[in-house]
């Protein structure tokens, strides 16, 4: 096992390197420069000033030199400084140690995604099992239609409707943001409740759209297992149907879900631009979108590299998960 892991970890290095080279090239190929924010269409800014700024940011050097300089810093775990006017370190934008933990972008996105992923798994797996065991029946079709409505509903539209309903008409929930104006005056319990209230709509919206994929996947995987001979044997032995489904079938049907769990790891830090913008949640999606629009190369690269690393790590974890749970794979 250990040599296998070591081999896999070593294999990650060239992959990661390849990803960063491609990303770096592609973002530099996109027209526009980070200095555009400062200089675009402002008659007070001379071409000399623009050139000077480009030099300041090192943009006058060839791309491979820029990549080399970047790589040199990154191997020391330094993602450099953002190109936006505030010149803050990339890491401080993602994980601002001057702010309390609950205000850091990565943490905010992580919490929302973790909650919604938990919700998705908690709801979608039972739905999938239910659909599979009630295949073709009316109840199967209702759940199928419902999850597909969730899948097809544009998140921004549903978000606005729910904000109007719960925020304005009923006045039960806050509309946007992470905390209320009077947050500082609240008791500890009040603060927790205030934050929880703000998370209800975003978590609901982000999980609603995710139900379809996982529940359909679960349904398919379950149906496949149910057709297997050993299930027939189990039934023939006279086992109770519930024991057949939950003990024998479900455990095997859950195996492919491990892959999905592994693939979900990078998703934990990648926020959705759309719902973060709608709910004014300062998460990773917003940060990434803004950095792309302003051509903030170091920040784009920082987020991409972390994302790529987590994707690879997720794959590895999924494989380890298989080894731990599936004796057939372990044997190889």
């Amino acid at each position, binding site marked *: 096992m250990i040599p296998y892991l070591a081999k896999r970890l070593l294999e990650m290095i060239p992959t990661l390197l390849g990803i960063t080279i491609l990303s770096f090239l592609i973002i530099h190929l996109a027209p526009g420069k980070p200095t555009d924010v400062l200089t675009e269409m402002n008659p007070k800014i001379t071409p000399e000033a623009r050139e000077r700024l480009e030099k*300041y940011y090192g943009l006058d050097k060839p791309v491979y030199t820029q990549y080399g300089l970047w790589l040199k810093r990154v191997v020391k775990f330094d993602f450099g400084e953002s190109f936006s006017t505030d010149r803050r370190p990339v890491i401080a934008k993602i994980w601002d140690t001057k702010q309390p933990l609950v205000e850091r972008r990565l943490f905010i996105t992580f919490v929302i995604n973790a909650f919604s992923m938990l919700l998705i798994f908690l709801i979608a797996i039972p739905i999938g099992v239910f659909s599979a065991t009630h295949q073709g029946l009316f109840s199967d079709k209702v759940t199928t239609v419902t999850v597909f409505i969730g899948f097809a509903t544009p998140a921004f539209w549903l978000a606005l409707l729910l904000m109007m309903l719960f925020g304005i008409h009923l006045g039960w929930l806050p509309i946007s943001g992470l905390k209320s104006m009077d947050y500082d005056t609240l008791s500890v319990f009040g603060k927790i409740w205030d934050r929880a209230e703000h998370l209800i709509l975003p978590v609901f919206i982000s999980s609603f759209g995710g139900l379809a994929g996982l529940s359909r996947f679960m349904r398919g995987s379950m149906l496949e297992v149910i057709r297997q001979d050993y299930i027939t044997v189990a039934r023939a032995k006279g086992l109770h149907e519930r024991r057949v489904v939950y003990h024998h079938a479900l455990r095997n049907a859950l195996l492919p879900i491990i892959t999905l769990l592994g693939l979900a790891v990078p998703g934990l830090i990648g926020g959705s631009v759309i719902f973060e913008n709608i709910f004014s949640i300062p998460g990773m999606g917003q940060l990434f979108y803004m950095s792309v629009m302003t051509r903030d190369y170091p920040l784009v690269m920082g987020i991409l590299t972390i994302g790529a690393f987590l994707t690879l790590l997720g794959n590895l974890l999924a494989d380890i998960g298989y080894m731990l749970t599936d004796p057939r794979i372990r044997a190889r």
Partner: protein
Amino acid sequence: MIEGCFEYSGTVAARMRKILYLIFVFLIIFGCRHKSPENGKQAVKTVSDEPAYGDALVAGSIGEPSILIPMLAGDSASHDVAGLIFNGLVKYDTDLSVIGDLAESWDISPDGLVITFHLRKGVRWFDGVEFTAEDIMFGYKTIINEKTPTAYQEDYLQVKKAEVPDPYTFRVTYRKPFAPALTSWGNLVVLPKHLLEGKNITKTDFGRDPVGLGRYKLRTWTPGQDVILESNRDYFQGRPYIDRYIYKIIPDPATMFLELKAGGIDYMGLTPIQYTKQTDTSYFSKNFQKFRYPVFAYTYMGFNLRHPFFQDKRVRQAIAYATDKKEIVDVVLFGLGKPATGPYVPDTWPYNPKVRTYGYDLEKAKILLKEAGWKDTNGDGVLDKDGSPFVFTILTNMGNSLRMNTATIIQWRLAKIGIKVDIRVLEWSTFINEFIDKRRFQAVILGWSIGLDPDQYDIWHSSKTKEKEFNFIGYKNPEVDTLLEQGRRTFDTEERKKAYFKIQEILAEELPYIFLYVPDATPIVHARFRGIKPSPIGISYNLHRWYVPKGLQRHAAMEP
């Protein structure tokens, strides 16, 4: 797995329809019901209208400030917030004349080369140190420093010599008289020397935790959420009435409007449709006050004058006759703006009301095109000349629906005189770098934000046509060049007015741009705020005099 979905029996299908119908009704009910929320009650109470200290103003903003040092900031959110923290030597009065701010008065030498500012005494930075001419000198040296990543140094490079004869006097000498010089000494160059001297301005925390001397000081800044400012009790023009100014970041305009309705924010800019339709309810008229005044900006359609189609002035005039500006203002802006006749805002001093105008007149347009040699020889409905049909593309940037709608209207109108227009919408950076800078365009719809000073040398002067410069349409007129020189080399307003009036006449005749409209700013503020005096420069200039009467205050007093 999916195929099962299509095998509904009749009754099942009927039940499904019923369920879908119920969902539909649910959405209709909650989507369309317009019930006012609870928080409308307090405005009805009668209270004394005495100015009082206290309460908080929550302003909604789409963008987040990046850095609170004016000379390093590039985005409007940063300048908005930094403008509350820093003051300049001079500022504009409500009638657009220049008045003193940190400078009490100033003298300009008769030859216009030397400006001497006499500073106000006893103004203090937030940390208690007195503000002196040394701070201005320090700011000036910083902005012209090669190592400072600022984009605004151009005006300051014109300075030949800067001196500090005594702590309350600052004197600058120019190489040539330079009319925009006076107003350039606004808040870009005011920095506390005692805190920043010898430090690398980009490496300090100052940009996120500035020490200023203005109306408000920074209290907390939570990235992505809000910037909370508290009033400067020692402000040299008196303590602001409103204790806290909260700059709340809400990137989505629809959410911002919902927050306004729910009472989460007090102050935001409305879009034309929000101003005319969505806030036209009794709830809004009872709880909010709306304002409207022209923005210092205009939107235009610019022609690439190097392109053979547009070299003939008659063609440009014909397009102007075929473009109904009134219609564009009414349809695109819901009437919230004015048709533009030149590059200045109507009713300001440089604006010339008597230039040639082009009312909507298709006949005149057709005659002019015929004179210029454009005829529909092959009968396909599109004019042609020397075998090439009159087809051109209007480029504009993504994300600005006003410009896209304007382009569509122009496309439709020009089709009526036999000109076929294509519209192409591009992402901003791509648009500027690949098309404007490389001059690969036929016509563009864009806007200029214009400063309060009428100098537009960089936009119209023939020396400014190189790559990346702003006369990207390639306009060249020696007379305009001379007049632009004249306008920026004298401080005499009457002289300048003459020059800029003449420039507008020439531009109106030659039409390098078709000036389309000057939009209105349409902010909305909660009704409990009093003391707002709308003026041509907007409403926020006297923010420190806004107040909420005691009985109407919503937010608890702040512990100091």
